[in-house]
């Protein structure tokens, strides 16, 4: 069996807010294999955001180890973590986080501005990569639009294009449909599924069952601890939904 793409062991995270000490994660173990699509669920305060920040290399665990693609990343400094994020991780956020001054194409290109390792080349080459990414999310005809000229769903497609541009090891989405209506939510989830089917490892942080039902596996957190880690069909609340969805699709 190949080594998991994500392997965390005994990850804890302790914040100090003034006098108070918050134990956001109290020792979490998790493996994610290449090509999986995993939902991370939990109520607010469960530690799911902290887990995602840690997995996304935005933050370092207080204790524990994190192997990303076989490399220990829990002890890297800010600059090294930035490079890991740049090369290994694509982020999709709830509120899209597009830069309003830039066109869709320029927004997609943004990560390449900070890349150094992979040698993405110069202007024309980069532009082509960004165009390819926009084509993958079906927005080739909106390249020169600014975010203000795009609908919510289109904005999220641009954000997804930006996230998959540099061919990251992990695509990480934090409530990606939280700001979208249900029809658009379906479109975006279908897009995630499509990208996943092309072999992309996807992690989705969500509190919505509908969203989790699109994944293969559901990890639930509570009070900073792993509550359950089940295949989607085995999850007591989502299993039925997932099965129904698949049969409807068939």
């Amino acid at each position, binding site marked *: 069996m190949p080594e998991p793409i994500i392997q965390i062991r005994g990850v804890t995270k302790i914040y100090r807010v003034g006098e108070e000490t918050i134990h956001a994660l109290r020792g979490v173990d998790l493996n994610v294999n290449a090509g999986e699509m995993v939902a991370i669920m939990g109520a607010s305060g469960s530690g799911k955001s902290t887990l995602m920040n840690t997995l996304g290399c935005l933050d370092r665990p207080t204790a524990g180890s994190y192997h990303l693609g076989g490399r220990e990343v829990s002890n890297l400094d800010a600059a090294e973590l*930035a490079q890991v*994020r740049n090369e290994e991780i694509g*982020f999709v956020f709830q509120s899209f*986080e597009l830069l309003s001054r830039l066109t869709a194409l320029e927004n997609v290109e*943004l990560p390449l501005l*900070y890349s*150094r390792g992979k040698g993405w080349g110069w*202007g024309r080459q980069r532009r082509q990569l960004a165009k390819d990414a926009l084509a993958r999310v079906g927005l080739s005809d909106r390249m020169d639009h600014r975010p203000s000229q795009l609908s919510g769903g289109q904005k999220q497609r641009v954000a997804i294009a930006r996230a998959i541009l540099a061919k990251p090891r992990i695509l990480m989405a934090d409530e990606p449909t939280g700001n979208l209506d249900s029809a658009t939510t379906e479109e975006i989830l279908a897009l995630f599924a499509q990208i996943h089917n092309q072999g992309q490892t996807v992690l989705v942080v969500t509190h919505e069952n509908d969203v989790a039902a699109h994944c293969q596996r559901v990890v639930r957190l509570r009070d900073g601890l792993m509550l359950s880690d089940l295949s989607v069909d085995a999850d007591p609340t989502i299993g039925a939904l997932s099965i129904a969805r698949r049969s409807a699709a068939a």
Partner: protein
Amino acid sequence: MMSPMFYLESVLLALRQIWSNKLRSILTALGIIVGVASTTAVIAALTGLKTKVLSEFETFGAARLYVFPSRPEGVPRNTFPWEKIRLKPNEAIALQEQCTTLKGLTPISEASLSVQSDAETLDGVSVTGIWPAWHATENRQVIVGRPFSQVDINNARQVCLINDLAVRDLKLPSDPIGEHLIIGLRRFLIVGVVETITERMTGFNSISAEVFIPFSMMEKFQERDFFMRIVALAHSPQEAEEASAEMTRVLRKVRGLGSGDLDTFRVQAIDQFIDQFKSIATGITAVAGGIVGISLLVGGIGIMNIMLVSVSERTREIGLRKAVGATPTAILLQFLLEAVTLCLVGGLVGVLIGQTFAFGVSSIPGANLENASVPAWAVALAFIFSAVVGVVFGMFPAIKASRLDPIEALRHE
């Protein structure tokens, strides 16, 4: 290190940022614009003035030497009464006869007298006693008639030269040769007209009526201990120093000064005036530099203020950039480049305004600034200073941006 592409894109991004916030950018850069513009203009005007003055000195003035009476410093006044230090006509003659380095010299003595023509009487006209060499030392030629001859001088003949303003003011015919003027109760024959020079910066401008009479004649109008000075011309500017030494030697001998005695007169070459002028110009440049320093400081504080606002406004953007892989150094450089770009744009606008000013003053007639132009070093300096201000005052906001935590920044409302 960042790729060259990174720097290029950061600068382009900064320009876009400036363009999309035009009004704010202008207001922010105003301190720098004003500072650079005013200094550029002052330096341009000064450069013009300097070029003009120095070129005049060089074309005809550099061989000129002046002799003044001068009381030695640090000695009680009554040790050297006026009678001992004042220049005397016989000293001018001695210098004339004994100085081989001189092309010519003239004693000069002035008085303000009443002058009367057939048609007009003017009070307080400048009457100057001269020798013929005056035309060479002052570079003012006779345009009608003739200069004084040695006979005029030796015999103290009652002849005079006038300038063309005197022709006008005394209502004389346009060719006044042969007319007579009553000067101080004596009747003088006009023998020539001297050109009037108003656009000259060195020497004495003739801006009103002037009358010139033989120096020996002038002595008769003056008190016994009247003031006179001597202007001499060396054969060439290179010999000016040598001439100065020779004149000093001759005068000391005439005055019977021993080797331990102090000079009771002063011989000054034109290059000393040039040095004086240059040091004044340097002083003004230094003051202008001080002004630019202060306004750049003020401008820099404005830049820092607006960059702090910009960092705060764009916290989420910084968070996003960090999330997609911007290192702290990359963020630092981006904000620093933005501050520097803003300052350089301010500097550019300032230089352009300064150039316009320089062009404006250079076309003011009679201001002696037709050579005003912004020297390349001033432009270079303006940009260097602007960039330094950008780096110095952009550093703190840029450090602040680079240290933002990406998670916190993305959560920022």
